[in-house]
């Protein structure tokens, strides 16, 4: 009997998505270390990566990077399938849905800042909708809504400006990261 080997073809796009997802996961982990007065109020740094991917490689790639970030972030933070994971997942899902619509806004008038703010509102909206419906049904969340919305507005705008600045920079001539060719196994 010969051992059967399953070989999965890996395209350059796959490698790119993996690399960008790793970047987003890194930012998620770094952000988890930042203390926050209210759970849920976070800068959302990984959204910078998601937005860059959306604007450069399209919505499908952004959806892949976002899903991988949520899944691997949950694995690494030990919250996989815990309530926090589902909140993160629903926020990412609504945010992606908002971006799917918002990317068709005329680019002449709506730049990365618009996309970022809308995505941030989608993110917190998705999280709060799930929290209000599943985790904390009742009026308790209502009092915190303005804080969450203000955080989404501020962090969304800041992230959007960062994305706009990164995109406005002239493309670097050299590679920024090493190629993803695995070392040959002897």
């Amino acid at each position, binding site marked *: 009997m010969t051992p059967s080997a399953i070989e999965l073809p890996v395209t350059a796009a796959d490698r790119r998505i993996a690399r960008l997802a790793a970047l987003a996961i890194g930012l998620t982990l770094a952000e988890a270390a930042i203390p926050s007065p209210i759970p849920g109020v976070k800068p959302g740094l990984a959204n910078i990566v998601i937005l860059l991917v959306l604007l450069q490689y399209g919505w499908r790639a952004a959806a892949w990077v976002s899903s991988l970030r949520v899944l691997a972030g949950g694995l690494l933070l030990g919250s996989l399938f815990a309530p926090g994971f589902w909140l993160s997942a629903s926020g990412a899902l609504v945010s992606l849905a908002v971006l799917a619509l918002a990317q068709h*806004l*005329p680019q*002449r*008038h*709506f*730049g990365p*800042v*618009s996309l970022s*703010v*809308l995505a941030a*509102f989608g993110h917190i909206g998705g999280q709060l909708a799930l929290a209000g419906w599943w985790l904390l049904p009742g*009026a308790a969340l*209502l*009092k*915190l*809504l*303005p804080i969450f*919305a*203000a955080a*989404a*507005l501020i962090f*969304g*705008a800041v992230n*959007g*400006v960062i994305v*706009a*600045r990164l995109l*406005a920079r002239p493309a670097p001539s050299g590679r920024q990261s090493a190629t993803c060719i695995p070392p040959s196994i002897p």
Partner: protein
Amino acid sequence: MLLRAGDVGVLLAGGGLVIALSVLAWGGQRGDTAVIRAAGQVVKTTALTHAHAFSVDGPLGTTRIEIEPGRARVAADPSPRQLCVKQGWLTQSGQAALCLPNQVSLEIHGRTAAYDTLGY
């Protein structure tokens, strides 16, 4: 260019949303109890927790009160000008609907009263 015209619009709309939510969430003390008086006497005190309705009799006829989670209203009243019915739903602590001809009043109370006393 960092900010385009639409971006400013989105930011302003977001700011408006934040302000609207602040007013909605913190604008006033939401009531949690309805106190119904007929001819000056408290006839019923009920929590604004679940939907129900009941009737109070006055000199002109029957006043119908409706309670829903977080709000209450006078649904029907025999008074000629229907002022208390037109007030609609009451949500904030301290709000009151007075059906003077029928001597029935509906008042919302919260955990902390917004006013010490109200004179009409």
